[in-house]
């Protein structure tokens, strides 16, 4: 067996929510049967942006905010890979927000896990996009409702590191959605930064598990939005599988189709000559 890199040890503080995210991801990858060499974990910048070092897979450390375009390129280039993008709300909802909006719209088959903690932890505790202007209320950017508002979106879920079993099953569902070629699986995880902003007490009180609500229908986009809005008005946060639907994936529309992207097909030269014929007349 060829020796490759030894996965790193997490750099996170004791009690950090990210341990729970990593655990759920590792178990989910095992559960869905994703071979390490057929898996790529891409992460952004920040504490969350080190998760790829700790999981045994192909790993990539993206530029700040750019993990989704890079992951989209990987997913289109090699549709057989299990592609997991990860980052924090600072990486994904500030500098990277334009890409998130367009990734919902394009719907490429990959999983995106956002570890939301309302904090720029690595630079020592500045407020991040999920934090509201008024610390007493949840008035930060809510990417769950954002995703629901974009017609192309196909999978939206929110986990909470306090609820490990649910987080694992949501991670499995997300990876399965992407691997089935059904499109972009967006999983936000409430993952508190215990050093700069320990939101465990608040989120314990605010979390509302829609998976436990028999009246909640995750196939109903409008209903999902209405529930999220109502809960927000009550200072509560919905967790669970928020929405899943069927929208055409990016690969189906823009991808290589039956042909692989690598060159060298016997008829490549004939095709190229055809292009030249077109420029000759």
């Amino acid at each position, binding site marked *: *067996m060829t020796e490759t890199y030894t996965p790193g040890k997490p750099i996170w503080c004791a009690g950090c929510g990210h341990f729970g995210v990593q655990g759920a991801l590792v178990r989910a990858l095992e559960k869905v049967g994703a071979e390490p060499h057929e898996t790529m974990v891409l992460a952004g910048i920040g504490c969350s942006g080190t998760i790829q070092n700790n999981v045994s897979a192909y790993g990539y450390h993206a530029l700040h905010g750019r993990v989704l375009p890079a992951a989209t390129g990987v997913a289109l280039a090699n549709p057989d890979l299990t592609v997991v993008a990860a980052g924090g709300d600072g990486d994904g909802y500030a500098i990277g927000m334009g890409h998130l909006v367009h990734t919902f719209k394009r719907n490429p088959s990959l999983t995106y896990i956002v570890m939301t903690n309302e904090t720029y932890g690595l630079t020592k505790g500045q407020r991040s996009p999920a934090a509201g202007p008024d610390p007493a209320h949840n008035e930060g950017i809510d990417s769950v409702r954002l995703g629901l508002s974009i017609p192309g979106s196909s999978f939206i879920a929110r986990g909470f590191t306090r609820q490990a079993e649910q987080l694992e099953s949501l991670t499995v569902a997300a990876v399965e959605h992407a691997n089935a070629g059904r499109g972009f699986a967006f999983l936000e995880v409430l993952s508190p930064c215990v050093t700069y902003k320990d939101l465990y007490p608040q989120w314990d009180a605010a979390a509302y598990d829609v998976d436990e609500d028999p009246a909640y229908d995750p196939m109903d986009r409008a209903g999902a939005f209405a529930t999220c809005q109502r809960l927000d008005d009550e200072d509560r946060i919905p967790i669970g599988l928020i929405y899943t639907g069927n929208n055409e994936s990016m690969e189906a529309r823009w991808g290589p189709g039956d042909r692989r992207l690598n060159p060298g097909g016997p008829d490549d030269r004939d095709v190229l000559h055809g292009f030249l014929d077109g420029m000759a007349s």
Partner: protein
Amino acid sequence: MSPNGVTDFNVMVAGQGGDGSLTVVTLVDRLMRRHGLHLYTSRNVASRIKGGHAAALLRGSDVRRGCIGDHLDLLVAFDAEALEIAGPRVGPEGIIVFDSSHGEPRTEVAIDPTVQRLDIPFGRLSVRDLRRDLFKNSFGFGVVTRLLSVPDDEAEDVLSERFNRLPPRAKAANIEALRRGFEYAEEHGIEQGQGRWRFGRAQAHGEHILASGNQGAAFGFLAAGGRFFTGYPITPATDVLDYLGPRINKLGGVVVQAEDEMSSINMALGASMAGVRAMTASSGPGIALMQETIGHLGSAEIPLVIIDAMRAGPSTGMPTKPEQSDLDMLVFGGNGDFPRIVLAPTNPYDAFEIGVIATNVAQLYQGPVFIAMDQAIAQDSVTVRRFDVDSVEVEPGKVVDAETLSGLEEYRRYAVTADGISPWATPGTKGGLSLVTGNERDEWGLVSTEPDNRVEQMDKRERKVKTVESLLPAALRGGDPDAEIGIVGIGMEVGVIIEAVERLAKSGSSYATFMPRTIWPVPDETIEFISSRRIVYVVEHNAEGQLKRVLAAAGAPPDRMHSILRYDGVPFRPADLVAALSERASVA
């Protein structure tokens, strides 16, 4: 008066953008190609969809030329503004065909007294007789073909060919308009076969195509196995997106139009990292936005081809005008030190070859390669030899497969090697698990700030460029190799330099010319050329002499180099350069 033979003929058709008046030039273009002339065509448009002065320029010559000539022989002006702007550019014995439907220019236009002006109200007559202003094009073509002594049935043939896809009624109306053109010419005393000019016997030049630099580079990328392209619309780079969009899928490839330049380059990066040859294209403002990722490609060792179709800056500048003012950014831009390669095609065929080289070299050295083209090289369409696609080789680089890996004891993505290039396992390959990052890292890809490792990794990356240097395109040379005065220029300057030096040689002044195709790293041959002359004029389209600055930074003696600069958005004509060089010779 017997007709003049057409050996070097410059035509301009000008009117308002978007009204279809430029169609005439595509008809003349077909006609000239039938007669075996080389073509150089250029457009001069405003940055708007419709309206604004728009002109198409066409030069047909029996010798291959790389620029538009000094003077116009024929101007077809569809409005007064066109006459005002282009009238003074018509040379002695030239002809102006003016659409007088909407009146005279408001100001006096200085036109050479030997120029003949034909006033024909194409627009008004087309509306009156054919009910659409648009038919003025075919009408005008009828007059133009008479001036060129082309038999009427040949003119009709060219028109039919061009409008082959139009519905029969529209095609018939165009032919009717063409015939009205013949009649009108007749009324003005221009009989069939008795025009001012006449084509010579058609010469065979082998198989030719009409292509722009943007198309050449895009085609070269495809030929060298490029299968993933991303772009975000920006003038004058959008042509690459337009060219590849409907074509790459036929080769099993993908084109994505991204939401911005950062997304564009990072998607291409992702595909490349996954083992597919990738490219993106933009212009100055977009390349500026991509800078962070370009440094990242250099650090993380990911191949990518980046086309920069350079327009006049700074900032949004003059989007449709040519300049060579991104050189500093391409050579020196970005944070930190990282390897990069900057190549500059001198014509569309060259763009094809450089497209191939860039794609292969990016793959070989695992880093960014720029194809830098000023707007004229990027967009002007020229007849060139058919691209020699059969001779293209697709270089695999140091990609390792599962079988090779299974025979190794260990695999390190950033292994320090003698040539600086590390074996590369792409995701999906068994036995090649690796970490890719723009942070400094150890050979395994794990983040490290250990001082010795840092130096080893930095030196390894710099070494890679040396390894591929011999594969980079050599400069074009011309003129008198022993001359003590040299001329250096890239891109759009090349065609002008060649023609100007040819003329100067006839009047007894000799110059050695050197036209680099590899800008960075500056090849030894460039330094040697400059060092071995008494004076070298560096001809550039920018205000600060950026190429000269780059050459000096690489060790070319700065005191020998003198700038000839232009930054008004207008290309040099050969006569401009002859004048500039003669003036300097008289004071030197």
